[in-house]
């Protein structure tokens, strides 16, 4: 398929609809949020539309800095684990027969139909002392008595990786299927072991895909607020949890908006940084 550059205004027409959607469902709500973040909170009522920096000032403290840092660290970790697990898996999947691929993809898609709530409750049962997987370990004699594996950081990480993994696989899949098999054949002919060929040929060839996937999972994980509550202790609550508390339970919209703006800015900065590093490496390569 050959693409021609658009020449007339009419050629841009297909863009109108998506642009409109983007404005209505993203630009306008986001601008409203930014505006609200500068409003004055009224404890006895709601808020008054004046300009104040109080909300940002309140956020700039060691406490919220710590929570923000934890949220970002968690999201990065989820992204890295997801890609580390999903990439080899998808690679093997793309090499298997059509039938096997279909079965796996249907299974993965069906995981997507589970809501965050169901995933959270399912894992909290699996990790519980009374009905959890440790009971199986006791039954086969590996453990002396059942243990609760939650709440804790491991439980939060497991739940979030489980939730993000299907997306990761589905994003990686098209690129891995389209990967030219002759690249590998060449590597093998030149004497590389399968593992070496995978690490030295496949991974570098798909570097951009990997970076894009990392970013996607990172952004996805950053918004998670239910799983940290269900599977973690208060120390594992992300900034999104505190934003929800402020917005829904304290009706402190201005402060919630200010925190959300901070979160968006931080994630944009991190994404920008990642792309910049990637771009520089590409240039030097």
């Amino acid at each position, binding site marked *: 398929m050959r693409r021609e550059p658009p020449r007339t205004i009419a050629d841009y027409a297909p863009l109108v609809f998506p642009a409109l959607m983007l404005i209505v469902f993203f630009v306008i709500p986001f601008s409203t949020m930014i505006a609200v973040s500068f409003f004055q909170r009224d*404890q006895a009522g709601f808020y008054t539309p004046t300009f104040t920096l109080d909300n940002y000032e309140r956020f700039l403290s060691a*406490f919220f800095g710590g929570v923000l840092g934890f949220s970002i660290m968690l999201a990065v970790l989820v992204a890295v684990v997801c890609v580390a697990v999903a990439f080899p898996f998808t690679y093997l999947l793309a090499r298997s027969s059509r039938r096997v691929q279909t079965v796996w993809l249907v299974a993965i898609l069906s995981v997507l139909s589970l809501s965050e709530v169901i995933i959270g409750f399912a894992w909290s049962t699996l990790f519980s002392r009374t009905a959890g997987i440790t009971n199986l370990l006791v039954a086969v004699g590996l453990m002396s008595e059942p243990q609760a594996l939650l709440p804790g950081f491991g439980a939060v990480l497991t739940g979030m990786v489980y939730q993000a993994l299907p997306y990761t696989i589905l994003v990686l899949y098209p690129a891995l299927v389209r990967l030219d098999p002759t690249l590998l054949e060449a590597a093998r002919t030149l004497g590389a072991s399968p593992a070496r060929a995978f690490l030295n040929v496949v991974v570098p060839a798909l570097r951009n895909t990997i970076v894009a996937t990392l970013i996607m999972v990172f952004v996805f994980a950053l918004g998670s607020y239910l799983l940290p509550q*269900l599977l973690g202790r*208060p120390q594992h609550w992300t900034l999104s949890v505190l934003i929800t508390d402020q917005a829904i*339970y304290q009706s402190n919209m201005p402060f919630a908006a200010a925190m959300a703006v901070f979160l968006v800015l931080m994630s944009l900065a991190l994404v920008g940084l990642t792309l910049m590093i990637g771009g520089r490496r590409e240039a030097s390569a």
Partner: protein
Amino acid sequence: MKKLLEMGISRRGVLGAGLATAGVLAMPSILRAQDRSIKVGVYGGYFKDSFDKNIFPEFTKASGIAVESIAEPTGEAWLVQLQQAARANQAPADLSMMSQVAMLKGQSTELWTPLDTAKLKNADNLLDRFVNKYPDGRIAGIGAVAWYITLVTNTDAYPEAPDSWAAFWDPANADKLGLLALVSNSFLLEVTAKTFMGGTNALDTEEGLLEAFEKLAEVKPNVRLWYRDEAQFEQSLKSGEIPMGQYYHDVTGLAAADGHPVRSTFPKEGGILDSGCWALSKASQKAEEAHVFIDYMSQPEIQALMSRKVGTAPTIKRELLDLTDEEFDAVSSDIDPIIPRYDLYTTKADWLNQKWTELIVG
């Protein structure tokens, strides 16, 4: 999918069906043809379902006023909607069930039409604490429903029921408690004050509040779960995963009746008594009907009916009710309750929230 498209349903047919469905959905629920009606906002879900089934039809039968019930969100979203609508002289609901904090916030903007007790012949039945007043004494709202939060335990893990909130502080209960996660819905500062500081008046000053926070910090190592979602704790309590905590008295009673090994205890310091008020929006044109409705709801028979069918604690004096001891104990208690300091959650909301979050997260 391809087969479906080949089945001969035309595109136009699909569109037509879609439009027809949208039309049906958009049609307002049809009220019975009656001259008088009132829109009543109730917490969506369990409360609305129970009221629709047990209470509203009886009221319409008795008064000839049709009720259109509206599901309102809990939290303060509904207050905000009422406030903004009132500015445009609209009332999404004439009467609404409002939490105590929302009542106080509404008072600050004069959102509630003052009620006239002369029109409420059952007003004398009410317990004083269920009459919500403006600072100058006008009546802003009348108690609608009340419920208790009590000390709950798993009977397998605790054969003996604890008798005091002090059990939360017992080092023997390390990592065993499930408590509500927010300062404004757990009311644990009030519990601390009543249990260790001689009463909730101790929270009048900032020093008192800080002292309560300090005492409450000692509970932290005992807490396994800080929950926002009720189902999360209820499940763990039933299974014994988290064998002690604070929870709703009525729901725990229902679970026990279903055979789960749980019990709800009124500690000697009292259960936490939370409640909602009927409040009339200033934009409503239905003041007459609203008074008739509130009066109807404050009758002993209706209060008893609600205790039996909905599981709420009565808002009127016990001697007027025909509830048996067993029925009364299922929803309430004669032990002097802990009444939350709602005033703090409007005047010091942000300070309390910040201290609280730092306490449990930090």
